[in-house]
């Protein structure tokens, strides 16, 4: 790793200020939540901060706070704590399951929700130090290279898939992200937090310099709401999603009153499927309906040379997840 200074932030304001100070004096700064992703990138010299602003010492930002018509989740909560919380389990199973599906206990014990949402791409070109778009270069190597794990939706000019498991879950829950920066706070809907490469090829989200993700608000679960997260891994554990599905259904008896279906592992952002949601709404979820949902899910897929298998895979995953969730008592 390049030599750097570690700065411990006491609170959000100070964290933002230290980052801004560093930048103004010509230094590169990075925030560290759990730091598990940041350190790996620094060791490969893919990111080279002069200053790390550690958020670990900030008190209270690892809590779950009910209120505001829902629950506010501090950005520094660990994935482990999030996955074990009884309220989250009861009301937002999709989020608990997504958090529990991340990597390993060791990573979940340090990895924070904010860090998980802001982790950089796991495209093997990027992580192997290729000078691609995500690394400030002008070329995507995957598009005509080894793209087995790359995007089938929303790709170009970069074809990464968004790596976070919690991201599709939060989009499916209509969460709102609270961002704190040098000029104050702002809130954005989860779905608007993530950006496609055609909007900004170098970044995965709307965070500007020195801005950080402070917390996430999830609205109260409506009556009859149930949710689940299904993830296909590339071995039995410890990989990112090849494809995942975050599904939230509001059921009224046998009938679906409202639906959210958001995919992971298929696009540079959590990939919401509004047509599928419309299809499901107002329907009894039969095998036929679920099958149509699967077909519709991949209607717009544009696979690359080596990731065509993701199309039938996504189709099946959507069909099976929707059906299983609808049938749950």
């Amino acid at each position, binding site marked *: *790793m*390049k*030599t*750097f*200074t*570690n700065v*411990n932030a006491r609170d959000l304001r100070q964290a933002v200020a230290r980052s801004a100070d560093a930048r103004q004096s010509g230094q590169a700064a990075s925030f*560290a939540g759990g*730091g*598990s992703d940041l*350190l*790996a990138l620094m*060791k490969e010299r893919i990111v080279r901060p002069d200053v*790390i602003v*550690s958020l*670990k*010492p900030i008190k209270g930002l690892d809590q779950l706070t009910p209120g505001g018509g829902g629950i506010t989740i501090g950005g520094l909560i660990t994935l*482990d704590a999030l996955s074990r919380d009884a309220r989250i389990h009861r009301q937002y199973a999709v989020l608990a399951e997504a958090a529990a599906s991340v*990597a*390993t*206990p*060791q*990573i979940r*014990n*340090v990895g924070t929700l904010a860090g998980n949402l802001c982790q950089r791409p796991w495209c*093997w*070109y990027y*992580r*192997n130090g*290729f000078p691609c778009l995500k690394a400030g270069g002008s070329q995507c*190597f995957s598009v*005509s*290279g*080894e793209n*087995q794990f790359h995007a089938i939706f929303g790709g170009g000019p970069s074809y990464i898939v968004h790596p976070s498991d919690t991201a599709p879950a939060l989009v499916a829950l209509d969460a709102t992200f609270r961002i704190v920066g040098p000029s104050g706070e702002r809130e954005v809907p989860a779905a608007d937090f993530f950006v496609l490469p055609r909007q900004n090829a170098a970044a995965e989200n709307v965070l500007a310099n020195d801005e950080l993700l402070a917390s996430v608000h999830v609205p109260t679960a409506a009556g009859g709401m149930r949710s689940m997260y299904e993830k*296909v891994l*590339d*071995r*039995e*554990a*410890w*990989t990112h999603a*090849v494809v995942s599905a975050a599904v939230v259904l509001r059921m009224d008896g046998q009938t679906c009153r409202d639906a959210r279906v958001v995919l992971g592992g298929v696009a540079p952002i959590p990939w919401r499927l509004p047509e599928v949601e419309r299809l499901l709404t107002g329907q009894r979820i039969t095998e036929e309906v679920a099958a149509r949902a699967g077909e519709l899910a991949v209607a717009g897929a544009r696979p690359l040379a*080596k*990731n*065509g*298998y993701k199309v*039938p*895979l996504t189709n*099946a*995953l959507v069909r*099976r997840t929707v059906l299983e969730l609808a049938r749950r008592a």
Partner: protein
Amino acid sequence: MKNRLSLRVYNGTFRYRFPHFAGDTMSTRRRSTDPPGLSRRDFLETTAATVVVAAAAAPAIDGQALAGAPTLVQPDPAVPRSAIRVTLNGTARRLDVEDRWTLAELLRDHLGLTGTKIGCDRGECGACTVLMDGKPVYSCSQLAAWADGCSIETVEGVAKKDGLEALQRAFVAHDGPQCGFCTSGQLMSALALHRVNARPTVEDARAAMVGNLCRCGNYNRYVEATVGHSLSPSRDAAANPRSLGGGGQSASPVATASAALSLLHTVGHPTPKIDGVERVTGQATYTGDVKLPGMLYARVLRSPHAHARIRSIDVSKARAMPGVKAVLTRENCEVVWGAGAIAGGQQYNDDIKRITKQRRYAFNNPVRFVGDPVAAVAAVNRHVAEEALLQILVDYEVLPFVLEPEEALAPNAVKIWPEGNLALNVRNEAQPNVQTRGNVGNGLAAAERTFEDRFTTAFEHNAQMEPRVAVATWEGEKLTVYTPTGGIANCRHDIARDLGLPDDRVRVVCQYMGGNFGNKNQNQDADLIAAMLAKEAGAPVKLELSRKEDFIGMHGRWPTIQYYTVGTTSAGTLQAIQLRAYSGMGPYRKNTGNIGGIDLYQCPNIETVVTPVYTNKTVSGNLRGPEYPQGFYGIQSMMDDVASKLKMDPVEFILKNMTRLARNEVPYTNYTLEECIRRGAEIFEWKKRWRQDPGSGRGPVKRGAGVSFMAFRSELGRSSAVIRLDASGQYTVFVGVTDVGGGAKTTMALIAAEALGVPLSQVTVVWGDTDRCPYSVGESGSRTTIMTGDAVIEAARDLRKQIAEKGPPKGAEMLVASATPTPRVEGKVRSAFGAHFVEVEVDVELGRARVVKYVAVHDSGRIINPLAAASQIKGGAAMGIGMALHEDLRYDRQTGRPLTTGFYYDRIPTHRDVPDIEVVFIESDDGLGPYGAKSVGESGKALSPAAIANAVSNAIGRRMKDLPITRDRILGALA
């Protein structure tokens, strides 16, 4: 068994129960006779040097200096530092740390707590697991500065004053550690689980340890230790004579099918490793744990190009950096790495070195693959060394490259060597490896049915948990190299030859080693580079490879393309087998590139032409059963398909066509192949699980079964052993083994105890140091037990004779016996046999393949230590799961750079990928080898990919013709 172990432990002096541990008290003993070839002075010097290592590895600071945060190293004002407070293994500490240190680095380098290992430094393996505020975390992925205010527990803090923690005892009893490199991490994860769940289920245990990889594949054992019972049913317990012998109520799910063997005293009883305690307490010293006074840290600069000529290298800036002590490039280091190329599969020797046209240097120009070393730097610490690499300016003329063997043989392909891309053998001939019997042309012409197909296998990396490292130090003209080698004798000889030194001026030490898996019974370029840097700098040097460098710069199984043509009668009797194949060797030919498996079949006409080809990929070499797993997969998939096309049950097909005479003509010393297959089929319930109609079954989740079988060389051969008896009645066995994970030390102790007729506790083993141990063949080719074991028996026999003649030694007297037998089998072939039966579950919509049932039946002769032997088979099978389903060093074709470097992208199997692997030994004694022992180590691996691939094909009704059988291939085959 358990009782004996706990007694040991409650003695409270577990460190001293095993006096062969580094810092052996030998210097205080006097002896009348020294082992041949070793002077007494050598012993004393050796011991002294070992003590230095131990002392240097002790904590650099102590907890009492609480007044001010103590400074751990000479502070560099340019490097930001932080003062932190931590509670470390229960003791409050204030420490002054550099901001750039990871927690692992603080623990290992600056606090001497080297029980925490670094396998990847990236959060991909778990070797570095410690508890932070009671929770397992990867200490490589945390800065030391972030630990401020936390409580940290490491493996060193687990044992209590009165002995081992119960979990540590269970880890030893259940044979958790093979090489032991992952053990600390597994233990810390299991410990955290036990604190919240005292009676975990198997699933709990797997979930808790899933973040801890074990390349030895010993997952079953770690789970068993954590849940406190074995996974497999214990078969034939009543019929097993051993269950009467004291070791029967073992942790081992080993079954013994034949009750015919005579019962022995120590041999044959499941025995935990004699150094198990060192391995579960973090006390075992691996090469990376060695820290010598004044030691420098080295890093290697590697080619980013698949093929390039170096026009110039400018090292002036790097050399001028403060803290840089030595820089090497081709310009000031012309050392040839003999074993790195052109050995053509033979042990490298002076004749080969003299004539070879294709020399591989420590630093090459042109560079021929991404990862070829270009320069090396030694500096006061690893951060400076890394920075210095960035200051080296290399001007490359980038050349065209070629990655695939068949493309490399095309007439217009770029030539990697002037002689062309067909790899040269030791006689500088560009010739394929050819084997013929009968006349294949006639055989195929006469066959009633013929079949053709093509199979491919991928580059599989060794991926041993311990990244390559070497520590070199010169005392005057004598070089000592600490290095993870499976063969200290060959390694020493290679280093000496490459550096132009006489053998006796080189000492090679390997006390513990984090996994072997092949190509380590010689020296490595890291040994040479460390030695040359140490010479240049005038100080000891530790050269560490990162995990990624280990993946791109070392070696793995050669990828193959195999074309088969098979002829049979209409009743399914083999008439002819033809194989034409290509093996990708990378740009240097380290090994043969062969493809084995044809000889498994009784067939009058065979012809194999295997062409080893140079490519600009990472160098291929021997990996666990060098030519077998890929060859067995190819031919046994082919034959499985032939059987299915002939509407035959594959087991019937095998029984009809399997080898009964070696190479169709030579009898085996004994023959149990048929028994292995029949018994395995019965235990596995083959008839029930195998689908006559492949791919049938309702629903998306299909099941299928597959079988594979083998005969595996178990040759006898030369090795040496020395045994010494002192007046206290303690026997010390000197053997040149390094114990790479198979438990060789324990095996030798068991054999010695048996041959001497004394209890195991009276035997001490000295190993892994060329200045202290006689020649050993080295741990490759699954032959240590047989060859070195024979030497131990012979030395013991001699010693018993001496005792009978002279009486036991008194006072300062000693009796010493040595032996170097060269046993041979005349007119027969000695072979181990086995068969694996696998059931898989394949979700044909998600493309997910999972091994759900596994039965491995082996005849490896008499099993010296059933506990360790079963672990070996389990581990081999586990590794085979990775080879069958995931592992592949994939390249970007545009740049020739590898992509799947490291444990994460290469998808090494985890706890969740490996089911219970049931091991059944059919024991036989052919009157040869130590008590009838045959080879074990590689055979589990050789069989598993073939059985798994056949099972997947049986489940989905499509022949899987390419390894690994990844999701895209499964879905592709079904599309």
